[in-house]
């Protein structure tokens, strides 16, 4: 498929989502909004996992930093509840990026499993802070937000809030798409494929990875701000390892290195987890089954499906031709 057709399909899907969502039930709107927030987190992780080849298990840390910053500013200083919401977005991204800049110093040295372990440990540090630093984070109880921002438009309305989150989602998708298409993004892919070769070519691969790490952290922080306002509650449970693992699985499920795939993965996971769980008690088996089947049969994730179908078709066409040939002989 041509790049232009792909972009067209994505835009059409987004438009359908934008138009269709307000007509669904109020719970479904909430779930779609939630999926979009998680999609931002998953796409930020895709920059690391899919494009740079760094499997990070600590992405929840940046979400947590953004969310806790939002909650603390909102409750202590009533900041971010009016037009200052936009400043808060910037601050949220900044704190995510700063945290990543700090963590990156430790993590980027390592690769593969060691990178996984270090990011896991660093992510747990943030959880530890959230859980134990009672005076600031409210510990186990977490922090209840006073409400969603209001600045001309009232975000307490779920449909309005959906539009805003949708806007941030599209902006993130566009920004990250441009990023991975840029020379910088290309060199990240180069590092993923062969870091040694890139280094021999004269690239400062450490710096490239470090910057990618910071960018991913920044968008993680953005997801955190939106997450806090979506739930109205920030709790250490948001920052636990499970959130990081979920983000990783969303990327793998959708197809690493595709951006859109991460968003689809987020959608599938959120709907299975939040919607199916209200219908049947054995929803976790379904989720597990989806993961296992994807890993076994779709190493490229859900985004790999069209490619698989094409291959299968080409294969059977080829086989058919062979048959004709052998028959004619």
């Amino acid at each position, binding site marked *: 498929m041509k790049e232009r057709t792909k972009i067209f399909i994505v835009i059409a899907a987004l438009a*359908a989502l934008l138009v269709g969502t307000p007509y*669904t*039930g109020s719970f479904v709107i*909430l779930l779609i909004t939630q999926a979009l927030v998680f999609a931002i987190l998953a796409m930020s992780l895709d920059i690391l996992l899919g494009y740079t080849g760094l499997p990070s298990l600590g992405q929840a840390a940046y979400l947590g930093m953004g969310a806790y910053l939002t909650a603390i500013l909102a409750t202590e200083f009533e900041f971010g509840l009016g037009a200052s919401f936009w400043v808060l977005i910037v601050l949220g991204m900044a704190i995510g990026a700063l945290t990543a800049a700090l963590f990156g110093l430790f993590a980027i040295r390592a690769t593969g499993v060691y990178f996984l372990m270090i990011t896991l440990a660093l992510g747990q540090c943030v959880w530890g802070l959230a859980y134990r630093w009672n005076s600031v984070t409210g510990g*186990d*109880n977490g922090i*209840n937000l006073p409400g969603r921002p209001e600045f001309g438009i009232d975000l307490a309305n779920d449909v309005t809030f959906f539009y805003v989150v949708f806007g941030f989602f599209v902006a993130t998708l566009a920004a990250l798409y441009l990023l991975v298409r840029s020379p910088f993004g290309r060199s990240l892919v180069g590092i993923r494929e062969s870091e040694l070769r890139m280094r021999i070519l004269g690239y400062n691969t450490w710096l490239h990875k470090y910057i990618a790490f910071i960018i991913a952290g920044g968008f993680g922080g953005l997801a955190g701000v939106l997450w806090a306002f979506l739930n*109205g509650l920030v709790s250490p*449970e948001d920052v636990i390892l499970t959130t990081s693992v979920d983000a990783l699985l969303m990327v793998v499920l959708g197809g690493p290195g595709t951006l859109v795939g991460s968003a689809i993965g987020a959608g*599938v996971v959120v709907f299975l987890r939040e919607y199916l769980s209200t219908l049947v008690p054995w929803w976790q088996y379904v989720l597990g089954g989806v993961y296992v089947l994807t890993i076994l049969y779709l190493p490229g994730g859900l985004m790999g499906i069209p490619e698989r179908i094409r291959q299968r078709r080409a294969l059977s066409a080829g086989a058919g031709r062979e048959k004709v040939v052998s028959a004619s002989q």
Partner: protein
Amino acid sequence: MLRKCKARTTSALAGLVIALGVGTAAGPAGAAQEIRIGFVAPMTGIFAQIGKDMHNGFMMYVEEQGGNFAGAKVNVILEDGQGKPPVNVRKAEKLVRQDKVHMFIGGLLASTGYALAPVSTRLKTVYILSIPAADDLTQREAEKYPYVVRTGWTSSQPNHPFGQWACDQGYKKVVTIAADYAFGYEVVGGFQKTFEDCGGQVIQKIWPPLGTKDFGPFIPTIKDNADAIFTLMVGPMSLQFPKQLAAAGIKKPVMGGGTSYDEFVLPSMGDEAIGHVSALQYSAALDTPKNRAFVRKYREKYGKVPSYYSESNYTTAQMIHEVLKQTGGKWPGAEKFVQMMAKIQLDSVRGPVRLDEMRNPVHNIYIRKVEKKKMHGYDKEELWNTVIKTYPNVGQFWKYPKAKFLEQPVYSRTFPPCKYCE
């Protein structure tokens, strides 16, 4: 892409079906046919067993009534909160938005109570706290949550009379050892407040983290000159602490917050717990005909002695029924329901219950001693929480004037301050 579209259409369809369903079935909020009650409790994870006790208690009453509350058909929708505050919030949102429940009940830990109360305000739906005991929800923050009614207890409520009781026993110096989180602070705070106002002294406070499995580092630090130990344990901690205390050869009298010796853990405990005293608004060993019938029936049905988790939810269902009796099975609307609920007076399994003006129960507090004996006609010797003293009609402010009580901060790690700690 294909899958996402599919998921979207199914969900859209589902939304449509639900919208139609609600449109035809419920109509205005006053229809008498059905009362939908959302029930959020942990069904998976470490608190799953407690969640089942909660749900069993509630369902036992509903089934006794044949699912019919004064003409209204009761539809209880259970959701798994997994014991995690954010999950509880999402499930409550689902119950209100999708199932259009008239009220939701449940939550377990204090943190879930704090998480769910704002949801009730935001969605203008009644939330009944049958278990979460966080003090402030019906004290300093009560105004923020006009749709919240508590049918359980505040953490400090049983421990106010308990501090008095300890003082009356002649204990002068007490060491507290309690789980390091909000519930622990509030339980210890309530005890310390009345104990010290009566002339006793808390000389040391030890805070092991929630979920501690080895008390080895904490037990040796307990001061020798203490007359007694006050403890608050939760979940598996309750089992471990008395064992290790006995193994360390400490023979001081032990008092505990209600959950430390609740019937939920009691059958798994060994003889080392015998003689320990605790305070709560319920004991399965309560020797009243009502409770005896309740215990026998519950045990026959679910194979275990009811804990306070079961009783509290059973009584909650009964209170809802009482309100509906008055309305003739019609849903009176959220605000009216809260008002009517607050006026209910009931002779329940735990004893007489009514709600105070901040919508928290006023009920008997029982001082209970763990004893091994036969009870309720069962022919085996078992551990029971024998009631040794009853404080009738205890409210959340004990004997303090309400206004004065609310002036002090909520009980915390640093309040009341440990004046006599050396």
